[in-house]
């Protein structure tokens, strides 16, 4: 009964505790800001160090922290414990489940129609291609992180391997995109296995660090192996993709001339759009199928409990390797697409920033959820563009939006898990039960 009453009745405001918290926060702010803001140093006209103090600013910052803590504390007491779910009324929740059922098909139809709707808007088409590239990368990494529960911080390495495979094969041997695409995937998968072998014994944080290092190693090798990769100058004039051998250009045997329509540069953009859409959907289709096959179930079981897997006779080594290889292969496909789209690649495109971004997409989307990852990619890449008008404050607003989302949905946008097989009725499994994996 006490539990019930504490939920219904508003608790009395605890002023002393509130003041105490606010005071402690203000003290921490004072210590931090007195050095960072309070004292300002600069090189003087003769090169000597000059400094001046800004106690007024420090005082206002500390006062802001003090006031802010009180306001936050009061808000927390009024709203009560933020059991996120409780704040959502049942009507909204049933509405959301309705939306949830039709969201994926609606999104897919809209995506297919994007080039039709926005045919004249090059900016939107380019942005859509970028978003789809990250959707594909997110889906690829989802196999490793979301399903198998192996934290991979060096995913960009496979993206780079795919991009450079295509770029080098196409520029050196003149092979077409459609021959190089599977090769790029196979090479990336090969590197995935190569990375997999030494790190299989590692778990959790240690695995994350080694994969992070692997990502950097690949980038450094690309920078320094000048004779092959061109080093920091990158690889330029990478062939554009052809429509199964028919070039998409202004020439006489180009696609436009053959179809008898007027040539427009947008044709290639639209083609690239559908190409990445097809690649992303292939990733999605394969992942969904794999989840329902024994290998996919073994990945998820591995994430849930590795010891139990071994007790059931599952070879955890090969299971982890296949997860790495599958994820890497999709990364390689995406890399090949990136290279053909840009026409120029350099090591700068494959920094840790990219790995972190793709991982953030997977985590924000809800590990293991295909739709969640797609939504997160849209939010992360598209949302970032939305805030462009805010200029300097873009990162700040974006960061705050991410923090808010993670408070609202700590297990990602779509945290629950759908079972892969059922007897009578497939019911979503609460994210509280699903493990994140530990290496």
């Amino acid at each position: 009964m006490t539990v019930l009453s504490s939920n219904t009745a508003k608790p009395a405001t605890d002023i002393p505790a509130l003041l105490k918290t606010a005071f402690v926060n203000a003290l921490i702010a004072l210590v931090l800001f007195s050095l960072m803001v309070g004292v300002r140093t600069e090189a003087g006209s003769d090169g000597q160090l000059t400094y001046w103090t800004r106690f007024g600013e420090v005082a206002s910052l500390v006062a802001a922290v003090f006031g802010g803590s009180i306001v936050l504390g009061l808000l927390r007491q009024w709203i009560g414990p933020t059991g996120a779910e409780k704040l959502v009324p049942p009507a909204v929740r049933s509405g959301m489940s309705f939306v949830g059922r039709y969201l994926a098909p609606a999104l897919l139809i809209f995506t297919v129609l994007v080039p039709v709707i926005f045919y004249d808007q090059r900016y939107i088409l380019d942005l859509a291609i970028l978003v789809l590239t990250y959707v594909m990368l997110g889906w690829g990494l989802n196999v490793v992180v979301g399903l198998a529960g192996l934290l991979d911080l060096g995913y960009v390495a496979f993206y780079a391997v795919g991009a450079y495979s295509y770029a080098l094969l196409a520029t050196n041997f003149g092979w077409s995109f459609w021959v190089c695409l599977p090769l790029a995937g196979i090479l990336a998968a090969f590197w995935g296995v190569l990375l997999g072998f030494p790190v299989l014994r590692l778990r959790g944080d240690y695995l994350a660090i080694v994969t992070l290092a692997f990502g950097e190693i690949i980038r450094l090798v690309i920078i320094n192996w000048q004779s092959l990769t061109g080093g920091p100058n990158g690889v330029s004039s990478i062939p554009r993709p052809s429509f199964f051998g028919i070039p998409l250009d202004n020439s006489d045997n180009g696609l436009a001339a053959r179809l008898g329509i007027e040539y427009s540069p947008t044709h290639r953009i639209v083609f690239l759009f559908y190409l990445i859409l097809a690649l992303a959907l292939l990733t999605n289709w394969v992942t969904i199928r794999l989840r329902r096959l024994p290998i996919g179930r073994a990945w998820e079981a591995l994430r849930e409990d590795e010891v139990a897997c071994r007790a059931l006779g599952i070879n955890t080594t090969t299971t982890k390797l296949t997860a790495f290889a599958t994820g890497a292969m999709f990364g390689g496909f995406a890399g090949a697409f990136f290279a053909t789209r840009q026409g120029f690649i350099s090591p700068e495109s494959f920094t840790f920033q990219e790995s972190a971004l793709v991982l953030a997409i997977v985590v924000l989307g809800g590990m293991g959820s295909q739709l969640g990852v797609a939504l997160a990619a849209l939010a992360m890449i598209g949302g970032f563009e939305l805030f462009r008008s805010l200029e300097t404050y873009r990162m700040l607003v974006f960061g705050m939006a991410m923090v808010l989302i993670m408070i609202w949905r700590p297990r990602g946008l779509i945290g629950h898990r759908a079972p892969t097989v059922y007897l009578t009725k497939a019911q979503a499994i609460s994210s509280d039960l699903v493990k994140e994996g530990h290496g």
Partner: protein
Amino acid sequence: MSGDKILGVDRLTMRFGGIVAVQDLSFAAERKKITALIGPNGAGKTTVFNCITGFYKPSGGAIRLTHDDGKVIALERLNDFRIAKQAKVARTFQNIRLFPGMTALENLMVAQHNALMRASGFTFLGLIGAPGYRDAEKRAIDLATDWLKRVNLLDRADDAAGNFAYGDQRRLEIARAMCTEPALLCLDEPAAGLNARESAALSELLLSIRNELGTSILLIEHDMSVVMEISDHIVVMDHGVKIAEGSPREIRDDPKVIAAYLGTDEEEAVAVMESGS
């Protein structure tokens, strides 16, 4: 000990640094029988289990498993997952290790991983939707359904295993181990944390596994009512060595066993027994 033995443990020794957890332990488990391994806390029972199921590499000694067809497998030389895969030894854990975020049915499907992997042509045939795999999956679901029925969890097949009550989780873990179609089933304290009614149901389940399927069972258990009721043979350990072996009746009256459990020496135990009877 006469009869057809499935598992022979010969002078098994396990050392962790300077500590000897198991020393020169020898015993055998008979085919289609239930053998119990009992002893006070810290006697080394789970260590023996981990050696048999490959989670530890024994420091010394031999563990031999004889299949129905007469094939002998040296378990101490195999890796953990190969023991389950090739030697067909399944186990459960003292602290239940289900896949909590997967449904009961999925848990039992994961247990049939190796058979399904072969049927799916190591994923490639399954990916293109070959009919052979679909049949194999249907059979796997049937086997899983059959086991859910046996452990009385059929109506909860599509619920997440992590949501199950403790006793249900124990039974599901046994069903999962049985879905690997083992020759030898090793159970580490299957009755721990169960109430009297659940313990009785567990005894019934284990007896039906032995009688109907002819699976040999090796179990560690503290619940003496279960051990005495279902065991065909009991091995008693204390401080890493075997102190007694025999039928439930022999073990019940053995002063050495009682002394070990009471933590006293033998004469005192005899005195306690005589004053009690």
